[in-house]
């Protein structure tokens, strides 16, 4: 499994990200870094404790990362949640959380798989 296949598996735009970051090395570095990013967990925790302000910031950051790394699918779902929170439509945001979570874990799963295949 190469990095492009990994991107395809979780719905990202590899060509685009490569166009911007130039080197596969760089892309890989950042994708690995994404595994350690806390934004998603901050978001989940804030939603649970109804800290919607904080949740918005976290999901917004997640959205920014997605843009930087061209995680198109996760960008979509995080964008929707961001908009819902901006409009104070919390029910809608909660409704969309499973999708966001799925997209997020798909990335994590794919990247880990890719990482493992590299290390082997």
């Amino acid at each position: 499994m190469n990095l492009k296949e990994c991107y395809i598996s979780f719905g990202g735009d590899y060509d685009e990200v490569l166009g911007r970051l130039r080197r596969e090395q760089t892309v890989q570095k950042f994708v690995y870094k994404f595994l350690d990013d806390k934004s998603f967990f901050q978001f989940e925790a804030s939603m649970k404790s109804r800290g919607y302000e904080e949740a918005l910031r976290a999901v917004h950051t997640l959205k920014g990362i997605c843009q930087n790394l061209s995680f198109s699918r996760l960008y979509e779902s995080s964008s929707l949640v961001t908009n819902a929170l901006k409009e104070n439509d919390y029910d809608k945001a909660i409704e969309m959380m499973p999708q966001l979570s799925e997209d997020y874990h798909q990335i994590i799963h794919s990247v880990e798989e890719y990482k493992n295949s590299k290390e082997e």
Partner: protein
Amino acid sequence: MKIRKKRDPAMQFLIFSFIGVLLFSIVVFSVLGIYMSQKSKNAITEIGEIYMSGMNQQISGHFDTVIGLRFDQVKGIISVVPTDNTDREQLYEELIYRAKVRGFDYLALCSEEGVFETLYGASIQPGNPAPFVEALAQGEQRVAVGVDSTGKEVVLFGIDASYPMRDGSKCTGLVAAVPLEYITDFLALQDENQLMYYHIIRPDGSFVIQNRNMELAGFFEQLQEQLQSESGNSLQGTLIEEFGSALKNHKKYSGTLEVDGEKRHICGISLPYSEWYLVAVMPYSVLDDTINRLSNQRMILTLLSCASILVILTLVFSRYFSITRSQMLELEEARQKAVESSKAKSEFLANMSHDIRTPMNAIVGMTAIATAHIDDQKQVQNCLRKITLSSKHLLGLINDVLDMSKIESGKLTLTTEQISLKEVVEGVVNIMQPQVKAKRQTFDIHVENILTENIWCDSVRLNQVLLNLLSNATKYTPEGGSIQLSLSEEKSPKGENYIRTHIKVKDNGIGMSPDFLKRIYESYSRADGVRVSKTQGTGLGMAITKYIVDAMEGSIDIKSEIDKGTEVSLTFDFEKAVVLEMDMVLPSWSMLVVDDDELLCRTAINTLKTIGINADWVLSGEKAIELVTQHHKKGDDYQIILLDWKLPGMNGIQVAKEIRRNLGDEMPILLISAYDYSEFEEEAREAGINGFISKPLFKSTLYHALRQYMDTQTENDQTLNSNIDLSGRRILLAEDNELNWEVASELLSDLGVELDWAEDGQICLDKFQKSSAGHYDAILMDIRMPHMTGYEATKAIRGINHPDALSIPIIAMSADAFSDDIQHCLECGMNAHIAKPIDVIELTRLLKRYLI
């Protein structure tokens, strides 16, 4: 004149009947007044007569009682004193005593011969002894007036009695007397305060008792003469005669007598115990005064009531008259209107039949020609083209007429739909281009800050209005004139959901006279025939326009001056359409706009700013070339150039050629034009024009036209990128997410930039504040950060006391790339906005702009 003739008989009738009523009421009231006063006079006279005869009766009764009483006393004397007393002296003493006791002042015996022997008091003698003595001799009781020896008037009461007289003979009667005052006092005959006064006369007319009021002396003298002569010819006519006969026959009499021009009422009655006659006189003046006062009052009241009735009558009449007159005027006005409208309609029909016939003839004629030359393809094509034109014209005419009849029957309704103002205006401009071109007129279109393009409106009708106004403008503007269409918007007073849109059509054509301006919305009117005899149309355009604008609840205002031009302003409050408007954001290119119209430049620059583009503008092609070259030398080329086709001096195509010659083919050059560009398209392409943008320059027009250059632009830049050197520059990057920070740092490190990380807005502010002057060259600012957002941080930085506080470039870097967000960034004091994902080329270009 007709009106006057018509109105006159009615007026005459009204005036005559009014005068008639006036006269009639005056006559009726006067007759009534006179009749009433006559009646009351008669009534008063009757009352006076009744009153007087009653009074006379009463006085006569009174007289009867008084005289009767005295007679009884004298009888009493006779009854107590016997006549057969032989002692004469003793008898006389007895009589005197009795007489004194009974209050008589005189006592005498009367002999048959009429000799009076006074027994007591002064000697007395009746004024007219003969009838007195005669009556005594016949044994009657008689009263008479006489005088005593001192000349005092007395009243004598004589009763038959046979006392012996001094000479021994028997007397015929005893006569006792009292002073005359006795009667007058008793009868109150001399009271001056009385309404009436009295005389007592004898049958011969001489006075027994005469009142001090002697105004009737003449009358009584005449009466005496009449009675003496017995002839019956008299001055007072029958009155004295009647009175005389009544007097003789001792009858009652009542009548009126005029003395010294004043009427008097006379009433006579005979008195008992004597031949006397009581005459009561009442001056009429007393009655007359009362009656006159009464009748005067009645007259005044009558006149007053007459006057008041007349006044009311006049008021009613004049009111009725004015109502009638205004009704007649209205009627006349309505008639005039109807006549005018029917005249306008027949005129219109005459015009229309001509107007319809012209294209119809063309169609028929051209069809014939085409048939004749059916093999000549060119000729047929030409004919068909002309037929198409004529049919279109004909269709236009018929549509107008149909619209007008719909409007007149109230059937024109609006079909409100969601439309794009841009599409409507573009469509209108497209349709107008051939007409404008045919007359070689300049056509400027200004779209000022129209942010709301999607609205609820009837696009067909709006189209119709705009087309009508614009075609009027071209129609009435001579060749080479200029026509301007401007659009702008402002907040609507109708509320948040509405937008007020102003549309202005301006020309410098022949204009209209103020008189015509007044009738401009009338159906079937057309600007004066002499100046525009060639112009064709139904004359319904403005009436339809006005109606549609009214139906859309808009307003239309026309300013016009002969030979100066016309300006039509439309104002509508359109409901905003709730479409999720596409977020129109383009990379922050630098652009150059070239147009000789400064207003257009400014509005275009503003519109470009809202989609994230920074642009410069110049007014002429020469300046544009200069500026482009200048920027090229600095290594900061414009990325896109917008060129107006029509420019003073060099036109757009020439400018493009020049730029291409100097700088090569890299940067896109777009031609903006309000005209149909198909004609010069080839020439323009050859000159190196990449594309065309049609005016009006709406936001979406610009966005869609420019978007296609986004990709080529990026590619172009990538090749340019390598020679950019930003080494040694120090940039402060505020970003709360480590990953994002690393991405940015990774990207920027390639450029040789030294990056400093601030984890949030607060840290960024602190770091900047602590830095020495010129330490940082720029700040990249994320927006959503904990503790302090990018907006707040920027505001704070711009506000602190630091030499670079105002000058340091701050570039927003955010995942939010809506135009609202960009606007907000600029408002907070940031210089530019770059959307995530961070595009290194884009970022480099921006940095280059601010750092070099």
